[in-house]
């Protein structure tokens, strides 16, 4: 059997009296994208820092492609790439100089380092700005450069710690495409994120952690299913009907419905409730522009999973 690219078991880490990791464990097969999901302070970043040899665990085991992060840190470092929460690039150098520097540090000869930098700049759409000081870059450009910098050594396992936090929608989409491309090229990716949409879009498997423990894992679809059935969603044609629709759906399902700007949603306890809703709306002469059953979003699933734990 192939060894997992990332293999973590019983990992613990405390800072002072705060237990940040409380025996977490997960694996990622080679060539897959694993999403590590959790609220702020759940221990995501600490887990990544241990896997990247920046931090030693108190106990437990963590290995990258079979190499223990504590016993063989240099071996692990030669296999991984890291893009942290803060773009770890040199502001005062140009993009080209940043990538060239990493290449030289990794042992590439001058010409090879220059070539590799050029390839990555082209791939990440930075060629036109390659000579500019990074200080003048936009947030999205910096993140792209940061990702490029973590790829100079052609890592087999890539760690992305909240790679799109703080980015605008366009930059986020761009970064997502780049990450999908890398995964398609066979790189194993561990991605931490608070954005469920991001995990949904990129990760084949998701591990949800909270208070330093794994509280759920599976594919995004499984997590959505597991967090309880389908959702009835109704969009009334007139905004003033929102309260009436909310009341009506609450009566039918016996669960409080929630309304946002233009849509009311409620978990369905029985698929027949959709028909009941259609009938009742018709009888009350409330025109609707959209009505249907859907799976809960990963957001709803996540809130339900973490909420259950809190209780």
């Amino acid at each position, binding site marked *: 059997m192939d060894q997992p690219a990332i293999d973590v078991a019983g990992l613990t880490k405390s*800072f002072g009296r705060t237990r940040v990791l409380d025996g977490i464990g997960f694996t990622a097969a080679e060539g897959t994208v694993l999403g590590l999901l959790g609220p702020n302070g759940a221990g995501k970043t600490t887990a990544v*820092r241990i896997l*990247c*040899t*920046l*931090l030693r665990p108190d106990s437990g085991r963590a290995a990258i492609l079979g190499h223990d992060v504590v016993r063989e840190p*240099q*071996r692990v*470092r*030669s296999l*991984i*790439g*890291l893009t*942290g*929460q*803060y*773009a*770890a*690039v*040199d*502001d*005062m*150098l140009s993009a080209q*100089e940043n990538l060239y*520097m*990493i290449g*030289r*540090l*990794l*042992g590439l000869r001058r010409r090879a380092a220059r070539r590799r930098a050029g390839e990555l700049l082209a791939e990440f759409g930075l060629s036109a700005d390659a000579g500019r*000081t990074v*200080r003048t870059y936009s947030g999205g450009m910096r993140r792209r450069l940061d990702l490029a*910098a*973590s790829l100079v*050594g052609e890592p087999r396992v890539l760690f992305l710690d909240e790679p799109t936090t703080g980015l605008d929608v366009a930059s986020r989409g761009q970064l997502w495409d780049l990450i999908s491309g890398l995964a398609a090229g066979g790189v194993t990716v561990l991605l931490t994120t608070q954005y469920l949409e991001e995990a949904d879009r990129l990760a084949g498997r998701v591990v949800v952690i909270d208070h330093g423990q794994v509280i759920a894992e599976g594919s995004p679809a499984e997590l959505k299913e597991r967090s309880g059935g389908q959702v009835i969603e109704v969009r009334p044609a007139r905004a003033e009907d929102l309260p009436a629709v909310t009341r009506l759906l609450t009566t039918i399902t016996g669960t409080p419905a929630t309304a946002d700007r233009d849509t009311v949603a409620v978990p369905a306890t029985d698929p027949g409730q959709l028909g009941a809703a259609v009938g009742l709306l018709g009888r009350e002469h409330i025109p609707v522009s959209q009505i249907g059953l859907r799976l809960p979003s990963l957001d709803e699933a996540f809130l339900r999973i973490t909420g259950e734990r809190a209780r």
Partner: protein
Amino acid sequence: MSAVTQTAVIARRNLLHVRSDPQQLVGMTIQPLMFLLLFVYVFGGAIAGSSRVYIQYVLPGLVVQGVTFWAMQTAIGLNTDFQHGLVDRFRSLPIARSSVVAGRIAADVLRTGWGAVISVAAGMAFGFRLHTSVAGVVGALGLILAWGFALSWLMAFLGVSLRSAETVQTAGFLLVMPLGFASSVFARASTMPGWLQAFVKVNPVTVVADAARGLMIGGPVAAPLLKSAAWLTAITAVSWALTVHRYRARA
């Protein structure tokens, strides 16, 4: 790929910073001039009777003092790298642990060399006269840079140990002020009260300044040189060990 090459790559990176932040060099050019003017022309007459006499005594020491102050850049620069996450990137690469600090120090010593040469040149323009050989001056500058190198390791330890840039600045200043001023740089130890003499005489800045003075204008060289060598070796060895240890352990 050896640690030496990695150190050189990091040093190059730090030297390239001068290009986007030329103030670094401007400061190192103007500050020695200001100190020279201040001490030679404002205090010189009062201390030595005439500024022309005083510049002969004070110039070698002023260069040592400048280098002492500039070493703080190592502490501040390393601390900034840590805060910007850049060190995380370096630490996640399969490179020698010491190369990030050593590269920074190499670059800082080179920059310091610029400031030291400017100081001596400015001193000559204001009337400082060498009384020894060219070899003496080169030797003095070499010793002064070796002092900068040793002190930079100590500063590196502060830079990686302390959290905030402000704390680093304060700690560096508290270290550098007594070293730079409670020394033989501005006046001979024999003119000071006994309790102060005790400190001034063992202060590494004193022994380095005495040796540099001997090498540039004549006087005893062997004894201060030997003491300097002892100090520099001790400071470098201890600070190097502490810094690498802290660098490895820092979360």
